[in-house]
């Protein structure tokens, strides 16, 4: 191959020399809210990312989906603004407010023009702190959520993944629940319950506000402090996560969906927490196994060599509790058995043989070399800072990351594979035109 470059040298030089680190400013207000700010000047725009530690794990017992419904209704009115006023204020500035719920975080995210930063942050703060949750808005949003649940019921990909999570995290573990909940629960949720959930879980001690963009750090911190400094609420009681049960047998579940053209396979294991010292070995292992260059080893076998799937990959979601490693593939029904056998074979080979030095080196180079690209946009930087804050990774995490990845050895990667992966303990769900 020409030209002859030694890519690793190039990548490491770029990472070390061209980047001086994000160096975000971090402030903790008296009410324990955390502000993270970072000035960039690529475009005259600012990304605001507000995250409350009140994700779907905050759903009360027996009421899965309540946090999700709150996320659909929270921006539909505040103590001083009607839903239509909020819509006008955001739309008029070209802003889309995205509200997401993960297992642990409830997030409000938007990008606005730099000139609009102050009023937009004030509005988002008000939405977060003082929603009015009008009954008629809740009723409309319920209709949307129920339709979305019905759409999910018709999606082999969603059905396979949700069933896998329920099997990996049984007995009501929050990680095994559907974030949107079920139709019967959504239908009977009340405004009073949503207000109570907000009152119980939304507090300044749970807030991390990140501002990244074309606004000077001091001004961003000052504006954010003015918005949130007066918020006074007690610290919510911590939510205990039940232990994650070990899986000691192979399980296989089929969800027949005969109206579909293609089957989805979800094949997985529970792994480690984000704080586990072996996390970086797991990350590299997963990259080489199911991500690097269109699906890693899995993609090479199932897509490239056997032509069985348009997509096949694995994802690792290490979290507060041991998160899952999930292999997913979209497969023609005639090839499902062959595809599962191929996944078994690749999992088994990984456990037996680990990665080759070349594979580890390639994945390491890729993950280190991709840091500048991953931190190019305001939104990406804001998301990175939220993750670093949530897991306590430190303000210099972007600069330490190459070293953390660089220190992982082949033996550690092999040990990671052996610790979590085993075809005989795999949980396999197949949803689609397959019986």
């Amino acid at each position, binding site marked *: 191959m020409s030209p002859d470059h030694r890519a690793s040298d190039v990548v490491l030089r770029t990472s070390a020399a061209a980047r001086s680190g994000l160096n975000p400013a971090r402030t903790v207000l008296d009410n324990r809210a955390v502000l993270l700010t970072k000035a960039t000047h690529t475009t005259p725009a600012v990304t605001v990312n507000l995250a409350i530690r009140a994700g779907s794990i905050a759903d009360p017992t027996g009421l899965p989906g309540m946090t999700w419904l709150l996320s659909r209704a929270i921006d539909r009115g505040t103590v001083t603004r009607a839903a239509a006023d909020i819509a006008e204020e955001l739309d008029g500035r070209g802003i889309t407010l995205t509200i997401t719920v993960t297992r642990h975080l409830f997030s409000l995210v938007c990008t606005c023009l730099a000139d609009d930063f102050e009023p937009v942050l004030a509005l988002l703060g008000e939405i977060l702190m003082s929603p009015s949750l009008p009954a008629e808005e809740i009723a409309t949003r319920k209709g949307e959520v129920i*339709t979305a649940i019905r759409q999910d019921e*018709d999606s082999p990909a969603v059905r396979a993944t949700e069933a896998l999570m329920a099997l990996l995290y049984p007995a009501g573990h929050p990680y095994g629940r559907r974030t949107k909940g079920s139709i019967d629960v959504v239908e009977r949720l009340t405004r009073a319950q949503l207000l109570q959930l907000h009152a119980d879980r939304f507090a300044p001690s749970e807030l991390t506000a990140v501002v990244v963009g074309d606004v000077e750090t001091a001004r961003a911190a000052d504006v954010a402090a003015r918005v949130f400094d007066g918020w006074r609420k007690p610290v919510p009681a911590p939510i205990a996560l039940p232990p994650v049960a070990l899986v000691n047998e192979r399980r296989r579940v089929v969800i027949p969906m005969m*109206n*579909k053209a293609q089957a989805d396979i979800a094949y997985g294991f529970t792994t480690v927490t984000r704080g586990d010292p072996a996390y970086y070995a797991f990350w590299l292992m997963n990259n080489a196994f199911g991500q690097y260059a269109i699906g890693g080893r899995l993609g090479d076998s199932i897509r490239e060599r056997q*032509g069985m799937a348009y997509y096949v990959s694995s994802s690792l979601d290490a979290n507060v509790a041991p998160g899952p490693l999930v292999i997913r593939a979209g497969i023609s029904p005639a090839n499902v058995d062959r595809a599962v056998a191929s996944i078994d074979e690749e999992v088994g080979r990984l456990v037996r043989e680990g990665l080759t030095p070349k594979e580890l080196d390639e994945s390491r180079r890729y993950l280190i070399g991709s840091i500048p690209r991953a931190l190019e946009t305001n939104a990406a930087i804001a998301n990175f800072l939220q993750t670093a804050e949530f897991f306590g990774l430190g303000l210099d995490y972007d600069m330490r990351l190459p070293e953390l990845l660089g220190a992982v050895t082949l033996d550690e990667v092999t040990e990671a594979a052996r610790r979590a992966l085993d075809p005989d303990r795999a949980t396999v769900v197949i949803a689609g035109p397959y019986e």
Partner: protein
Amino acid sequence: MRSTTFDNGLKVLIQEEHTAPLASVWCWYKVGSKDERPGLTGISHWCEHMNFKGTANIPRDQVKGIIEQYGGTWNGYTWIDQTTYLETATRDALDRMLFIESERMASCLYHPDDCESERTVIISELQGGENDPDQLLDQELTATAFKAHTYGHPTIGWLPDLQTMTRDDLYGYYRRYYVPNNATLVIVGDVETDEALRRVNHYFGGIQPGTTPSRIVTLEPEQTGERRLTIRKEGTTAYLKVGFHAPSVTDPGFFPMLILDAVLTGAKGLNLWSSFRVPPPQRSTRLYRALVERGLASSVSGGLMPTEDPFLYTVSATANEGTPLASVEGALLEVLADVELHGITEAELIKAKAQLRARLVFDSDSVTNIAHQLGYFETIASVDIFTAAPSRIAAVTLEEVAAVARRVFSSSNRTVGWFDPLPLGSGSTKSDV
């Protein structure tokens, strides 16, 4: 941005952006699914897949990781007017990116075994799309709306064509269209323009031009009456789509139509690569208020793409559980009839322009996105349309919006599609056109 045309016909656009130590390289070809004749539908997209399979100087087993070594990402896509390939990586990888694209242009192999293996991958991609009722409806609606123009068939192709196409078909197509005089190379990032041009010349200067490929030219005759189709298939959710023949990007009505779409469903901007991944600001728009706020639909969206020939403006809605599609359609058409009759208000015009101004800024937040825009517009018409977009948007008048609303939203210009779900387990599929 500097534009240069090499002796072999290759057009090169370079824009320096020194905000991050990155560079993005895109190579665009004027070939898309509209260039496909019956029997070969999907060939442009299949060729795109084959062009990741190894070249004379990049062995197949070394394709994997060739850009990842630099922390880079690569991809490609095919659509109705164009096929494109990209790499974004650290600036040090510029030579590597140019090398890859020069190889892709001149030296792909199309090994018969790889062609066969990719046949099943593409059929899997097609089947995955069919799992989504909304996507299935979109495909059928487009096919119904176009009687003559090759925009009517899906970019992925029809299944029988994918089952019968040969390696010789693919290779012949590749050789016809992948010539420097049918391509635009775009570089955006932390580069120095003169040096980048020298590197481009090093990799591409020796590639011989080919015969400029002739493109299929078919004019879609004016639609003379409403068309309808209904897909009845097992499912859980009902979907509605209404498509209208719409202005091409060079039509004076394009930017007024962009404003009109913003008023109806929220401004999406102009970036096919990034805009549609972020929902538009739409809660105060006419169709959101008429359908979603009234509880008839859980979502509504509008789609106006910049295209070389007149394509479709499509409005899509997901009916709420228990809401008849006829009710959703009635409410939707009522809104469109109102703008057809009365146009939009001054306040709506001002808001739509503000939204689009913001979206153009948001869409230019990375070297990848900027490079996409330059190449996209140059390939379908001219990069000048993109650079002039802010002023063109600012200049749109109420009268122009009203005129395009009258022209586009006439009932004889529309095609209405329903996905009307049958109960799960009923085991039937039926389509009425």
